[in-house]
């Protein structure tokens, strides 16, 4: 038992780092994922992975293959896309999914154009995106800072964010915080995603943000327990995935995400709001 569960983390520093990094990411990203899901913006993460290309390309054009300028460029591009899409959805008739799609496509095309002008054939995203097995001190500090900022902001603006997410018109009628909170939330999304890409790669950051949230939705209707449950599922998936990757020689990112995926599938069927329970309840209702 000790050999199976604990020894890998005791023997190898990179396993400790992988665990610490992925757990800290779950802490911030899972609650953000819950809100994204409730706002029906679950695919934002994938869009964002493409949207940051022009920023990374600008960083690359001026500073070469340096991680820090490319990450900052990516953050700026991500914020522009998110805020642009948010503004369009807020001030026009168009919904957030359509405006997000429009903005990320423009951004992606711009990025491809810039990379081609430079004539480089190095895959920028391949260099920028990290892997959970190779977290250095900088990456760990980055993730820790993101988790801290995310949790603090969520706690401070909790009521406003919940209201903004569930009933924006109500919030607008009782407070002027609506618009700022909307953009603060989008900022959190970008921060978690871009930071996560840099440290852990796209699959892991988007996956850890959305899958635990989607799974938690099948167990509760209240937002607070849903966030807590999402974080717990995220933690469990990270630990299970890393152990699986270690013992079964599977790539780590996919192993963690598949663990979360398994939880999601089980929740879909057996969750208190899943297929099984809702069916049985309806059945009883009919016969009674």
């Amino acid at each position, binding site marked *: 038992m000790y050999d199976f569960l604990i020894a890998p983390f005791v023997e190898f520093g990179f*396993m400790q780092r992988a665990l610490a990094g992925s757990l800290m990411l779950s802490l911030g990203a899972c609650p953000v994922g819950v809100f994204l899901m409730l706002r029906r913006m679950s695919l934002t993460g994938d869009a964002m992975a493409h949207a940051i290309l022009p920023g990374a390309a600008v960083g690359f054009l001026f500073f070469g293959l340096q991680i820090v300028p490319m990450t900052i460029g990516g953050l700026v591009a991500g914020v522009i896309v998110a805020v642009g899409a948010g503004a369009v959805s807020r001030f026009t008739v168009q919904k957030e999914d359509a405006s997000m799609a429009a903005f990320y496509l423009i951004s992606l095309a711009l990025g491809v154009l810039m990379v081609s002008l430079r004539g480089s054939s190095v895959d920028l995203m391949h260099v920028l995106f990290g892997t959970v097995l190779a977290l250095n001190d900088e990456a760990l500090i980055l993730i820790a800072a993101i988790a801290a900022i995310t949790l603090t902001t969520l706690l401070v603006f909790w009521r406003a964010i919940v209201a903004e997410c569930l009933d924006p018109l109500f919030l607008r009628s009782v407070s002027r915080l609506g618009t700022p909170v909307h953009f603060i939330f989008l900022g959190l999304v970008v921060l978690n995603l871009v930071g996560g890409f840099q440290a852990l790669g796209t699959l892991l950051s988007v996956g850890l943000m959305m899958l635990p949230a989607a799974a938690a939705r099948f167990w509760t209707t209240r937002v607070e327990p849903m966030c807590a449950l999402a974080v717990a599922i995220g933690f469990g998936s990270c630990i299970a995935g890393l152990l699986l990757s270690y013992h079964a020689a599977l790539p780590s990112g996919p192993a963690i995400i598949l663990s979360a995926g398994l939880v999601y599938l089980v929740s879909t069927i057996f969750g208190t709001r899943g297929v099984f329970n809702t069916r049985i309840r309806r059945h009883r209702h009919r016969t009674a």
Partner: protein
Amino acid sequence: MLKSLRLAALMSVITLTPFSPASAFAEPLKVVASFSIIGDFARNVGGDRVELTTLVGPDGDAHVYEPKPADAMAMAKADVVLVNGLHFEGFLQRLVEASATKASIVELTRGVEPIKMKEEHEHEGGDAGEGHAHHHHGDIDPHAFQSIANAKIYVKNIADAFCAADAQGCDSYKANADAYTQKLTRTEGEVKAAIASIPQDKRTIITSHDAFGYFEHEYGLTFLAPEGISTEAEASAADVAALIRQVKEDKASAIFMENITNARLVEQIASETGLKVGGTLYSDALSPADGPASTYIDMMHHNVDTIKGAILGS
């Protein structure tokens, strides 16, 4: 007898179109090389009789390259297209089809004895020669140019292809190829001498992806890598743990970055084991003209000097 031999030689190099359009007298032969190392060979063999276009330039990664319209144009106009083959250039097949080129596509690995890629990284260091026979049943390793003996085959194939496309220049190509092959032979001797000066039990080193299979096979070093044969694959925790164990048991004596891959994994292994990163090896692409490996011969010298320096210095 002689005639049939010549026929066989001709058949072995002309792959897609039996007879490419005969080039005009003063026109240079238009040659497309798929990546920088082949480009360097072609320049040495062709001299100023050929007009060379290299698709994947210095420090570029041919595994994940996305071709541009200019590449398709160069391809469509080309008389000869030189490629590595063995599925090294993933982008190539579609580009050939899309450009509708009439050029002969010459796979330079023709005549090279292919070796298979390693399935597992765990096999014991030190006995690189015999550990090979039964250990793997994966795909074929395309990085054949990492052995100088194979580079000579590449050069011969290029000369034959140029002769077939431009009979007037044949003598000049043959002469260039001979001169260059002599340089390669000299380099090979120097590489072997350098490796002979490394003690037997220190000949296991770590790089970031499996690009040095042929080098290992030919010169008796063992290379271990967390990533697989393509730079696209992702490492597993078990692979990284196995590498770290190898270093801790003093089986691997140096660790290197490569010019085309993400260095973070290598840096992490280095920092965890206390092994210093010994420098950058050039695996699948040359450096720009001002770098330490702007030609194939410079690259081989640079790689072997870097390896030797790091192992003997530690």
